[in-house]
């Protein structure tokens, strides 16, 4: 069911102020036809504001919204032809599931037979083909969001907007529906903006992840890129778990950390201006070997948290008492009980320095 409605979206220099608070500052984002971009950030970072501006639900802003080369900033929400899925409970409670999905066509005065056929097609796509006659309250939360997705897609929207569609759901349903949304979006090919505060969700679903902090888009890149090569210290610290290790700058390209030499990666902040700082290293970039309590990388295991495939080990460094987290495959972690003496090894090819 690939549809022809593939459009590009360009948001240019958006700025939005609520009272004294700047919700969005010089926000620019290009979305390619058929691409799925996820905006990731804590609540209040402006991600939802950006989505609502694109939807036309938030109007007092500056900047351009260009769809297929045409600025639509003046077009009201109901003329923008966007499909939107809300956080929860957005189905019309008095309409059947089929009527909900057909609603956008009904207000466009498409005749009943035609719109019902289209709605049924969409319900089949989201795996609820047999539920068309139910009412919203007869569905589970996950099913309701599937219907909301079908309703958003029924009008063959220019852009699909998903505003935290999974955050009200249980962990298991969330994961399942996340993969489902990705599959459907790939199949239909609609240009999509997805807003979430859940990192794993953003990473798993998006072609590109836009990391937002305080109304500013810090980085927008494929998930691996954001995680493995964060543009700056802010992104590095916000996305995923991160250890800060004391580091000495030994050359323009190398650091010395707990007696080990590691390559320095230069982020947006430029080259270090001081001789020391904190190196940012992920828990899975550290590993352990059994130790004898001597040496600069010596440490003691203080705690183990079993997380299924991975185990998170906390160690206290013998030298400076700082606490580090190490993520290890659980099968290997069995060799390292609480209290044992270890050496911490850095397995990172290059690291960012917070100076």
């Amino acid at each position, binding site marked *: 069911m690939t549809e022809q409605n593939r459009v590009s979206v360009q948001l240019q220099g958006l700025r939005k102020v609520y009272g004294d608070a700047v919700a969005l500052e010089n926000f620019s984002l290009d979305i390619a036809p058929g691409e799925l971009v996820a905006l990731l950030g804590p609540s209040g970072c402006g991600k939802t504001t950006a989505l609502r501006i694109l*939807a*036309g*639900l938030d109007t007092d802003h500056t900047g351009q919204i260009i769809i297929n080369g045409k600025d639509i900033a003046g077009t009201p*929400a*109901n*003329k923008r*032809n*966007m*499909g*939107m899925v*809300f*956080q929860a*409970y*957005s*189905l*019309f*409670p*008095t*309409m*059947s599931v089929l009527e909900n999905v057909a*609603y*956008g066509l*009904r*207000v*466009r005065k498409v005749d009943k037979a035609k719109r019902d056929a289209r709605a049924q097609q969409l319900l089949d796509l989201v795996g609820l083909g047999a539920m068309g*006659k*139910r*009412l919203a309250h*007869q569905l589970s939360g996950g099913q309701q969001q599937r219907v*909301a997705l079908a*309703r*958003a897609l029924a*009008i063959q929207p220019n852009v699909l*907007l998903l505003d935290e569609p999974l955050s009200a759901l249980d962990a298991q349903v969330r994961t399942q529906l996340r993969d489902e949304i990705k599959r459907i979006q790939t199949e239909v090919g609609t240009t999509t903006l997805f807003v979430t505060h859940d990192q794993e969700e953003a990473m798993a679903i998006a072609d590109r992840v836009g990391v937002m902090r305080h109304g500013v888009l810090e980085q927008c890149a494929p998930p691996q890129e954001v995680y493995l090569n964060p543009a700056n210290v802010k992104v590095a610290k916000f996305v995923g778990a991160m250890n800060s290790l004391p580091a000495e700058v030994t050359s323009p390209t190398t650091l010395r950390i707990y007696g080990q030499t590691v390559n320095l990666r230069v982020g947006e902040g430029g080259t270090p201006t001081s001789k020391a700082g904190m190196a940012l290293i992920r828990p899975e970039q550290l590993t352990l070997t059994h130790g004898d309590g001597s040496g600069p990388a010596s440490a003691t295991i203080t705690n183990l948290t079993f997380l299924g495939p991975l185990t998170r080990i906390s160690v206290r460094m013998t030298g400076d008492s700082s606490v580090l987290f190490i993520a290890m495959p659980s099968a290997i972690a069995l060799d390292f009980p609480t209290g044992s003496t270890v050496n911490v090894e850095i397995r990172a090819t290059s690291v960012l320095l917070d100076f």
Partner: protein
Amino acid sequence: MKKKLTSVNYLVLLAASAFFIFPLIAAFEFSLRVNKGKSHGFENFRWVFQQGGFKTNLGVSFRLALLTAVAVLVLMVPTVVYLHLGGGRWKRMIEFICLVPLVVPVISFALGVGTAFPVFLQSTVYELSFLYVIVSLPYTYRALDVGLSSIPLMTLVEASRASGASMRQTLLFVIIPTIRSAVNGAVFLAIALSLGEFTLAVLLHWDTFPTWIANISQGHILNAIALSVVSLVGAWLVVLVMAVAPKSLRSNKTQEATS
């Protein structure tokens, strides 16, 4: 804990029922007394229907009720919806204004407001409808407000807008169907108030069904009781129709939907 509550519930229910049902049964028994209480029959009722003005006055009251209901529907529903969409800024003040008719005794309305009304309005019995809309305001506003507060109004409106609907379509297709029971409740409250209101009608010297009953009852106590039972049963029928009809319609629809 649940077990204990159940027996308490029974007691409460019994007490509440006794409060209403005992007087009703007594009234009905009274209304059947004929021959100075020596035997029972339906003669009082027959007498009631034969009194002059029964149909006329009942007609006036029903027309007043209808007019009041329409006014509530047309004025109040869009107003309260707009207030809810426009944010909470005005809600407090409007709520306060809606409390006013509660604290202003109806008698003050009759005297104070009555004199301030334009004369062309005062020349017809339907001026009462205006007053009934005002007097029922605290209840009708509250019913609609509770109804709208219990639904995710903003999300539904935005979902409808994003689907391409105009505000008019949104109101008609989404909002009103969703708060239909609250709308029914508000209209029903207005009707019940209009049918039973006595003070304003009497003080402004208009004849409605309640004032006619009060009139007729002077010196005919048994007949008056019979009349009160009749008007009561009539009003009950109105409630039943209004309360049951939408529900059975809805359950039919649900059955159809799940079959």
